[in-house]
Each structure stands twice: as C-alpha cells, then as structure tokens.
C-alpha cells in the first residue's frame, strides 16, 4: 500500500478534500470517500458509462481515471444538476418521457446528456444516438432516452417540446 495522498477537488461547487491512495479510482473515491453515490459502477472497464461524471468540462468515465489524475479538478455529478428551483430540465424530461426504468444507468446518462447539450445545443436524433453511445442501458432500449434528450434540447432552445415529431411516439406521429 502506497502512502496516502492529499486530494483536493471541487465537486458540485463544493471544495472537498480527502486522503487516498494514488491508485484509487476516481469512482471509488467519489462513492466511498465522499459518499457521492449517484455515479454507479457497471463494468470498471470503461464500457458502460454508469460511472460518467463531468470533469473540467468533459464527460469522463470515473472508473478509468485514478483519483490522482483528477487532482484539483472541477467535477459535476448527477447530484449537482438540480438547482434550488427544482430538477434540471433533462431530469424532468427523463421522467416525462419514461427515459429510465431501473435507474442504474440514469445518473451517467443524464450527466453525459448534460455535457452533450453543451457541446451540441440542438442535436439531431442521430447526433444524440452517437453522442450517447458510450452509455449503456439494459432496460429502456434507448428510444425514450433519446426522446427525453431531444425534448430537453427543444425546451432549452425555447421551443415547444411537444411539437417535435422526434419526441412523439410513432403512433402519435402517424
């Protein structure tokens, strides 16, 4: 066991510090040392995206980063997206469009979608599907996740989300 290092991070706007081993993975430090259990573990091999957090303006898989590599970083997790006024529009749209079932992938999904909509504020369905391809979901089949993200984008762009064909069910469009 190596000596512990002094890790300082800004997480969801709060300055936090802890002692940890340099080899500890960021996801474990978040979950075990800071009790931030929104980000989950689905594989620990960077395939599933359940552990996705936002680190210095990029989506990262927290299972594939040593905590030491994150020294000094600013991190946003799903816990940091809602504001005192209420849930983030993405969170609301995931609920509205049934974009989740067991909820295990959801924190990673929403955190990734939150960054995606900053990278590309008005994406097409194809761009959403491509931009979300690093996050696996076993329950929903993605259709409603894609719909939720498109609806959130529409609202964030000041459009009436219910008017977009992309967020309707095929039965509704027909």
């Amino acid at each position, binding site marked *: *066991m190596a000596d512990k290092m002094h890790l300082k991070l800004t997480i969801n706007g709060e300055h936090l510090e802890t002692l940890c*081993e340099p*080899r*500890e993975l960021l996801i*474990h430090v978040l*979950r*075990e040392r800071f*009790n931030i*259990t*929104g980000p*989950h*573990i*689905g*594989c*620990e*091999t960077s*395939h*599933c995206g*359940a552990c996705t957090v936002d680190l210095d303006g990029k989506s990262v898989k927290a299972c594939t980063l040593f905590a030491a590599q994150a020294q000094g970083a600013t991190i946003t*997790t*799903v*816990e940091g*997206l*809602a504001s005192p006024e209420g*849930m983030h529009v993405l*969170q609301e749209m*995931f*609920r*509205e469009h*049934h974009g*989740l*079932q*067991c*909820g*295990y*992938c*959801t*924190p990673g999904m*929403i955190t990734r979608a939150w960054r995606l909509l900053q990278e590309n504020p008005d994406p097409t369905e194809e761009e*959403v*599907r*491509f931009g*979300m*391809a*690093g*996050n*696996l*979901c*076993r*329950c*929903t*089949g*993605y*259709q*409603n*996740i*894609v719909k939720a993200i498109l609806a959130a984008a529409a609202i964030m762009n000041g459009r009436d989300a219910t008017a977009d064909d992309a967020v309707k*069910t*095929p*039965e509704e469009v027909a």
Partner: protein
Amino acid sequence: MNDMTPNREERVANLKGLGCKRKRVEDARFTQGKGNYVDDIKLPGMLFGDFVRSPYAHARIKSINAEAALALPGVIAVLTAKDLEPLGLHWMPTLAGDKQMVLADGKVLFQGQEVAFVVASDRYVAADAIELVEVEYDDLPVITDPFKALEDGATVLREDIADKKEGAHGPRRHHNHIFLWEEGNKAATEAVISSADVVAEEMVYYHRTHPCPLETCGCVASMDKINGKLTLYGTFQAPHVVRTVASLLSGIDEHNIRVVSPDIGGGFGNKVGVYPGYVCSIVASIVTGKPVKWIEDRMDNLMATAFARDYWMQGKIAATKEGKITGLWCHVTADHGAFDACADPTKYPAGFFHICTGSYDIPVAYVGVDGVYTNKAPGGVAYRCSFRVTEAAYFIERMIEILAQKLDMDAAELRRINFIRKEQFPYHSALGWEYDSGDYHTAWDKALEAVDYKGLRKEQAERLEAFKRGETRKLMGIGLTFFTEIVGAGPVKNCDILGMGMFDSCEIRIHPTGSAIARLGTISQGQGHATTFAQILASEIGISADKITVEEGDTDTAPYGLGTYGSRSTPVAGAATALAGRKIRAKAQMIAAYLLEVHDNDLEWDVDRFVVKGAPERFKTMAEIAYASYNQAIPGLEPGLEAVSYYDPPNMTYPFGAYICVMDIDVDTGVADIRQFYALDDCGTRINPMVIEGQVHGGLTEALAIAMGQEIAYDEMGNVKTGTLMDFFLPTAWETPNYVTDHTETPSPHHPIGAKGVGESPNVGGVPAFSNAVHDAFRAFGLKQSHMPHDHWRIWKTANKLGLHG
C-alpha cells in the same frame, strides 16, 4: 358541498388508476442520483469480501495456501471449503434439486468457480489478497460440448454423484446425465410423422447467453451477535425465498433473519438464484461479527452467475400438403453446466418449454429434454422470460419458417391457417396447457396490415432481382413471429420453488386521513411497481394513486411472496392487490352503510365513494369512510381499515403478440441494418401504457442483442471468451433501432382485472423475429438454419457458404 364535487370524469382522472399513462413516482429519486442500490449501503465497520476464482474449467485442487494473503495488513480471513465444511455449508442445495459447491471442494468444474473467499478491510486490499492466495491445480480433461459429455467413456464431471442412478427428476442414464423429462405422446407423434405428407426437420440451437443487468449481483450480510439477528441486503428478485433458504442453511430461525432488497439495477433473471457470494458473506459476518459486503465485478458476473439458454433443439414438424400442421416432435439436449442450478418451478426441470406448440393448433406433440453436465458455469435462468419459454418460442417459430420453406409457402399464411381459433379458447394444447384466451387472427391481420406486408414482399422480390442483376449487394429480410407466452407462475398445486407455493401477496393499510400503504411479496427491478400497483389499487379502492405508497422487498414488513421474475408480478401479485383492495371495499361498504343509515345493499360503488342507490346526493367518500373507521365505534366491526390477500392463481396467463422485423443485409460485410420493427402485444388489460411501451422497447433491445451478437462463448479448454463488455455484446443507442409498438386487448378471463403481464414478451417474441429476418433474407438461396447470434462475421460466413461472394 355537493356542488363542489368534481364530476365523475374528473374523479376518475384524479384516481390515476388503471389504463392511465401515469408518470413514475420512482423517477425523482433515480434522476437525481438518490437511488439506494446495494453497493450504496455502508454499515459501520463493514468489511469487503471477494473470491479467488478458478482459472481452469476442470481441475483437481492439490493445495490452497493463504499464508501470504493473511499476512497482508487489512486481510481478516480467507475462507475455503475446509472452513465451511464443519458448518455443512461447503455445498448448498440448488433450486433445481441438485447441490452446488459454495467453495471448491477438492476440484473445480468451471472457469471462474469460487475457490476461496477473502475478507478484508476494503475492496483494494481484498483484490490484492486474492492475488496472494496460492492454489495448486492438477488439470483434468474438459468437456464443453453436451453431446460429448454423454459419450461412453467421457470424463466423470460430478464425482460426488457419479454412482447415483436416480436424480431429482428421475433416472440418470450416464454419469454426466441429469434427467430426461418428457411430455406429450411420443408414439402417436412418431406415427403421425412417419406417415405425414411433409416433414421438416432441423436442429435449432439457442446459444448460451447471459442476462447481464447493468448492476451486478451483490449483498451486505450483517450478523448482530448480541440480539442474534441476521440482516441481509442484496440484489434479490425473491427476497422471501432467500430468507427461507438462509434460515434452512444457517440454522438461524427465520424470524431472526431480515432480508432486504433495496433498489435493484435490473435483474432479468440474473438475481433469482442463491449464489456462493451470499453464503460466504453470511458466514464471514457470523465469524467476524462485522457486516460483510460482496459485490461481483462484471467478469465475475458473466463467468459465474446465471447463464441462460444453451438448448440444442432437434425438431420435426409434420404437415399436410396444404400446410395444416399434424404433429410436432422435439428433443432437447440442455447444457446445464457443472451444477443443475436452473431456476424453474420444482416439477418442471425444463421449465415451461412444453409451450413449444406455440400459437398453433397442433393435434399431437412430444417433447423430451435431456439435462447434461458440462464444464461450464451453472445457471439456466429465465433471462427475461418465463422458464424456457423463449427457447420454446424460438424453436417453434424457426420450425414454422423451415416448414414454410419446405412447402414453398408464405410463412405468414402458414401461420394463419394453423392458428388456434378464437372460439377454441380455453384451448387445451397437446402438451398439457390450458391457454386461457386469445384472438390470434385479429392480431396477425392488424400487424400484417400495419407494415403493408404485401408491399414488403413485393419490394423484397424486386430487391432480389436487382441483387441477381448485380445492381445491389444488399438483401432484404422480413422476420415474422407470432408468439404465445405462458407467464404468471403459478398455481400452487403444481408450481413451487423449494417447496414454497408460487402464490403472491399484498397487504394494504388505509390511513385515517385517506391515504394508504400497500406492501407486496414481489420486488421491482425497474418495472415501476411503485407506480403501477398503486394504479391497480386506486381503481379498486377509490384513493388516488398519488396517495398510495407501494413498498416491497423488506421481509420484516412485506407479506410472504415468491418475488419478481417470469412476468409473474402483474398476474399474481397484481391479482392479490386487486383482491386485497376488494376486501377493503367490502368493509368500507359496511362502514358507509352505518354512516348513511341504510342497508349495505342499498349502496353502490361510484369511482371513489359509496352512493345510496337512487339518491346520488347521499354518499360517503373513501376518505370519509377511512376516517370513520378509525374514530367511530361501529357496531359489529373492528376499528381500522386493513386487508391482506394471498393469491393462488387458478391458471397461468397467456400473453401473445405479433412482431415483424425488416432488415437490409449487406452480403459483403455481414452488416444487418434493421430498418423497421413493429411489435404488437396483447397483454390483456393494460395498467399503464407508458410502462408497457417501455418494457417492450427494453425487451426488444435485449432480443436484438441475443439474436445479433450476444453470447457466452467458451473455447475447448473451457475458457470464457466473452467475459467483459468488450466481447459480450450489449447494444448502444447507436445500434438500436426505433420500435413501433401496437396492441390488441384480450383480457384474461380468470385474472381479477384481466391483466396478463408483458415484461418478457418482447424478449420471447423479439429473438425469433430478428433471427427469422436474417434467415428470410437468404431464403431464396436455400438457407435453412444458421445458428445465432447473427453477428457480422457469422452472416458473412453464411453468405460465403451460399456462394454469394462470387
């Protein structure tokens, strides 16, 4: 006051009851990272357990040396079979009547098998310690092929039972044989086949795969030595059964065991069984006096817990020249791995595979299933299906296509002329089931019309011509499926798990101010029970679903139930919920009669209240009645308003559906592009259409994975070749198509609200739809059968074998 009363329509809407697209109450927590999954549980002083696993598929263990591991700071204990033996816990019973090693006892039988359990202060120390445990192995010949396992002179896998001629399901005819299970009339079926106009024959393989929920299995065991109580948190699809098993195994009285399933990150059958990790965690907690957590990593999950399928199905289907099916014969060689740990009702070692006559009126049939041991992981779980129903559906839907090909008939028409007709329900199948209800022709016609089936066939023919002229390299495949499920296990007279009848339960308490809590014996893993069961109840008792808390998963508070799998929650626990609600309403009626000073029979139920017949201005709402039940002395009635119902279903339910998949296949790359997928489901009464649609999307995506790329593959040495998500295919948003969902509604006649269950239909019907589309694309070139999964490489090989690469 009556002027203020909302009208009937508004009152119905306020209930958010049956049939409404109610948004889920679970979602506020989950979308904000406030779920509480097993790995989120942290208890003071908690230790972490992890397994030393076997790198060999078959080997004798010469020695285990844990000295170096124990010397590592932070390592508390290393358990081996020797430590468990004095407790009688080195082996444990399986759900299928076999037994299974908890920790390797003298030998290992599959790669990834649990050899030793390391207990350490945290998961990093545990991971280090695993590497320090020295195990010496002598490798033995490996058998991964179930046909080779049954050869004379094949290596003996299970030495512990090598001489036993009788297993849990009858005679064993070979040392690697588990059982032969038969149903139907063999002689009559063979007679029909030998004299039939046409017989189509084929070996249909449904490969080994894995449910792979996004959250792996895990638990936290906490033994409180002072009060003698064991608390076990874990990813359990059947928490009450786990409590009973834990009590039987540990000798701790059942009332001193509390099993809690917290939020579960998907189950799909993976979380039904009892795994060595649970047993070792309990023992470790008893030994150390501290809570012990065990969480599988993804490789452990894919290698060791709960594979699904692995059925080799030899089939013969007989028909007249006109295509009327006259008989069906099937023999299955079922690869169960090293231990028979299938999660089926006790009397059904091959589950409900004998639903394999499908949606068709087949006069005579026979099924025989041979269970076989190999050097693979145990499991055989119902991966989002009801006990081997997906194997059965795949089998019959392939046989129908192969028969159509042989008869040179359109496969849609062949299905139509053989469907069980509406007026034949309740229908007794040749293999012993009583189908409760159905209207297949209506559903089929609706589906074919929705996709413009004729137009599709025309386009396909044109494409084929263009292909032959060299103008395109893409073939078009139309995959048809009509499936009948059998879910909602099941009637206690013939369905049990470890002796526990497969009833389910609901207990309701109405609070004085007119809200309620309902507790059930099931457990949601994403199905949204907290939302949908409240809807069932709202319609029964007239209290808004928003005022009903649904709680599951804590055996100290929930009534005993058999859990959630096999699409049984709605058919069984949903029925219990409705019936418990009716008991509440019956008492409420007596209270209302007293309050309104009329006879019980003078009242009628109206959405959320009892009204005096003929005097609509005189009524008592459910909220008023609830209050009265707590604050008034009502002659002849006990105070309070509570009810409990244990529901023993009289029959299974039989959801059905019609799925059509259209794909374009590039013969040079093997890439299959799914252009259209239409799914019509009939699950009887629909509780929440939004949730149903979500279930269908999810199940179809699992089916897509299974049919098009997902497998647990072994090499000849028994090494798992697909042990990570790099190799084990889970589709992303990019590969997954959009689905069009549709429905018909044929209520179950024996279910209190007519609901049949839907969660598993899309997996059952989806797999043959995708697979049939691939086969259909190559039908014109004579392809009869190519085994799943149809990944790019296999499709390319198929095209190549058919000579399509010039």
